[in-house]
């Protein structure tokens, strides 16, 4: 695969992985390793004052992985900007996966608030990777305000429903025309979904639940890795069109017994 370039940095892997929902930090660490991912997301949360909790960072080798803090849980642009500033203040990264999700029931992003927050954060020097809808006009606006990528959902977070509107992802790919990476983020359920996203022209995918909650997360992580590569190669290889006209794969002439 060609290197995956995002915000001026080059990566070999086109699979980004989340660190939530694993049954244990040990399993998470093994799954990350099996995935070949180089960019991993983390959330920002209040320290628990009542109990000392193991730091997740003790299970993430920062020499190997690039940390991408998120603004998960933020309902408004203001909350997201505040959380992003705190994430940066921790001193590890000025990258931010921007999520502005007003309804915990749907977990779908507010595209207007996302563009507003993105504009503020870009001006403050953040590298902004916005989680967004599959609307190509919103993608255009995010690019215009200076985001380093656009990350449309395949379907809602944690639903594993795959790409609910493949043509809308394709339209975003056409809209963006390679100016920044398009990363399908959320709703991937199986490796076939990840492959489809790559075949559709996405530059990368971000997967969390589909790996963390698989029966065997480590094997699933490996499968996702292979699927992303397969989809990437397929895109380059140029698939045949879907046709309503069948055509035989074997020669028509010379069939035994034919008069």
């Amino acid at each position, binding site marked *: 695969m060609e290197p995956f370039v995002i915000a001026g940095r080059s990566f070999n892997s086109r699979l980004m992985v989340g*660190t939530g929902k694993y049954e244990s930090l040990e399993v998470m660490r093994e799954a990350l390793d099996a995935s070949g991912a180089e960019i991993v997301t983390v959330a*920002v*949360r209040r*320290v628990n004052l009542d109990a000392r909790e193991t730091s*997740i*960072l003790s299970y993430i080798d920062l020499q190997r992985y690039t940390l991408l*803090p998120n603004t998960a849980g933020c309902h408004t642009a203001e909350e997201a900007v*505040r959380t992003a500033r705190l994430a940066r203040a*921790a001193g590890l990264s000025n990258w931010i996966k921007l999520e502005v999700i007003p309804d915990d029931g749907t977990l779908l992003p507010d595209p207007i608030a996302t563009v507003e927050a993105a504009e503020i954060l870009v001006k403050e020097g953040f590298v902004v990777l916005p989680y967004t809808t599959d609307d190509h006009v919103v993608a255009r606006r995010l690019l215009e305000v200076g985001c380093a990528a656009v990350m449309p959902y395949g379907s809602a977070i944690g639903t594993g429903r795959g790409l609910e509107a493949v043509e809308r992802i394709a339209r975003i790919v056409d809209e963006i025309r390679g100016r920044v990476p398009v990363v399908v983020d959320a709703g991937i359920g199986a490796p076939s979904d990840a492959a489809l996203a790559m075949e559709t022209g996405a530059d990368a995918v971000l997967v969390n639940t589909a790996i963390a909650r698989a029966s065997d997360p480590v094997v699933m992580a490996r499968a996702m890795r292979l699927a992303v590569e397969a989809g990437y190669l397929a895109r380059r290889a140029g698939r045949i069109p879907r046709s309503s006209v069948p055509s035989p794969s074997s020669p028509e002439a010379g069939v035994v017994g034919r008069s």
Partner: protein
Amino acid sequence: MGVGEVMCVRIRLNGKDVSLPDGMTVLDLVRHYELDGEPVAIERNGQIVDRQAFEGEVLQDGDVIEMVRFVGGG
């Protein structure tokens, strides 16, 4: 303040009312919660506190502090 009473500051930390010895700095707070080995971020009264400034910022009565760290997430 009567004779023998310990002077303390009352702050709101991560949404909870906490009493701490007077004179504690932000760095002391981080150490108190055994967080000085890991990346944390602090907001004091709505303003980010630079990590270099942890040692110099003395907590005052009524301070509202948010102390955050990284956890698993997608």
